[in-house]
């Protein structure tokens, strides 16, 4: 009898660890709060842990189980926002569907989650090229010519090199985005001054796009709409902060370039 109790206890702990790990992966890689809560609950109930509950914030998960004839277990995990990998979100989502179909034991789920955690991201080269292509495409979208797009491509590449190697590892968000905005603006203005491209505005708008906090913004709105106000407002604050930092950076860029070139050339 006691032996059985021990086994139960161990199993509950495993289930809670697994559900926490799944929640961690989702939250870290850009899922909404309600999805994190739902997935954790699904995993718990599927493996028969009924007294568990989880409280999810934008950068942490608090989870407990216990009461009735289930043993107590509690864990708090701090989850710093690290970047968006939607492929991991999709993979965890798929896994949780498969769990509901009863395909996995708890140990197998733990192993699958480890695999998802180690999923290779896109290489840095790919990211830099994607940023360049995105910048060029958006420059064209807003009415830029082919020459403008070429400049935007260069600026987008330079911007992402800066994001990956300079601002990402070393700067805080505010400084990083001010720097990024300034870098793009100065680069585009200088190229424009040298006669490359016809529309300075389209070039800057296109190449600033990779900095725009689209994930934070959309997730903030969805969290607020779902009633997760705390996380929603934190994410909205994050998005607004980045928007303002980019704007300040662009302002700094214009001023510096104007100061270097003597008067703003527009």
């Amino acid at each position: 009898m006691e032996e059985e109790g021990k086994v139960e206890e161990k199993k509950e702990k495993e289930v809670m660890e697994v559900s926490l790990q799944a929640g961690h992966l989702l939250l870290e890689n850009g899922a909404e709060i309600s999805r994190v809560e739902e997935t954790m609950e699904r995993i718990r109930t599927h493996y028969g842990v009924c007294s568990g509950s989880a409280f999810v914030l934008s950068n942490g998960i608090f989870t407990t189980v216990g009461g009735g004839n289930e043993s107590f277990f509690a864990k708090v995990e701090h989850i710093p926002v690290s970047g968006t990998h939607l492929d991991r979100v999709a993979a965890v989502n798929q896994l949780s569907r498969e769990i509901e179909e009863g395909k996995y034991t708890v140990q197998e789920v733990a192993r699958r989650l480890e695999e998802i955690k180690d999923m290779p991201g896109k290489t840095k080269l790919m990211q830099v090229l994607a940023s360049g292509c995105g910048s060029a495409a958006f420059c064209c979208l807003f009415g830029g010519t082919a020459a403008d797009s070429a400049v935007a491509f260069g600026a987008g590449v330079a911007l992402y090199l800066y994001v990956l190697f300079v601002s990402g590892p070393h700067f805080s968000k505010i400084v990083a985005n001010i720097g990024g905005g300034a870098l793009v603006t100065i680069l585009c203005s200088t190229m424009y001054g040298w006669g490359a491209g016809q529309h300075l505005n389209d070039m800057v708008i296109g190449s600033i796009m990779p900095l725009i906090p689209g994930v934070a913004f959309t997730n903030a709105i969805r969290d607020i709409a779902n009633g997760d106000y705390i996380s929603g407002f934190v994410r909205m604050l994050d998005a607004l902060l980045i928007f303002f930092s980019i704007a300040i950076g662009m302002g700094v860029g214009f001023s510096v370039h104007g100061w270097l070139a003597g008067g703003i050339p527009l």
Partner: protein
Amino acid sequence: MILQIVAAMAGTVAFSLLFGVPRKYYPWCGVIGGAGWAVYVPASHHWSAYAASFAATVVVIFLSRAAAVRNRCPSTIFLISGIFPIVPGAGIYWTVYYLVTEQLRQAVYTGYEAVKAAVAIVLGIVFVFELPQGIFRWAVKRKKAVKEP
């Protein structure tokens, strides 16, 4: 116009790569981003910019949810990159430009317009996510419909 839509598709795909969207969903992301812009441009000729933003957002979110149901994955994957062409990046640029060049009137006006467009996007997202999941049943793959009688 066609060129712009192609550019919107290319831009959306490039950004979905940055966000780590699985490769098999790139075409979906591209089509959704292109569709958003294809609605935005004609709409902005007839209506104000924020009404056009709203209409385009509604289309993007609706298609994202449909694609999510079809592929059985989170709609976030499609909508985050699909929404990008509509984001008022130009509004931010002009606001800053007018601020730096000391044209405060213009700056306030463009800033206000950008905020209105952002609010329209917010409303679009909120409203379409209120639609019940049942509406998207048509998007479910045939195979699944057979399995669940």
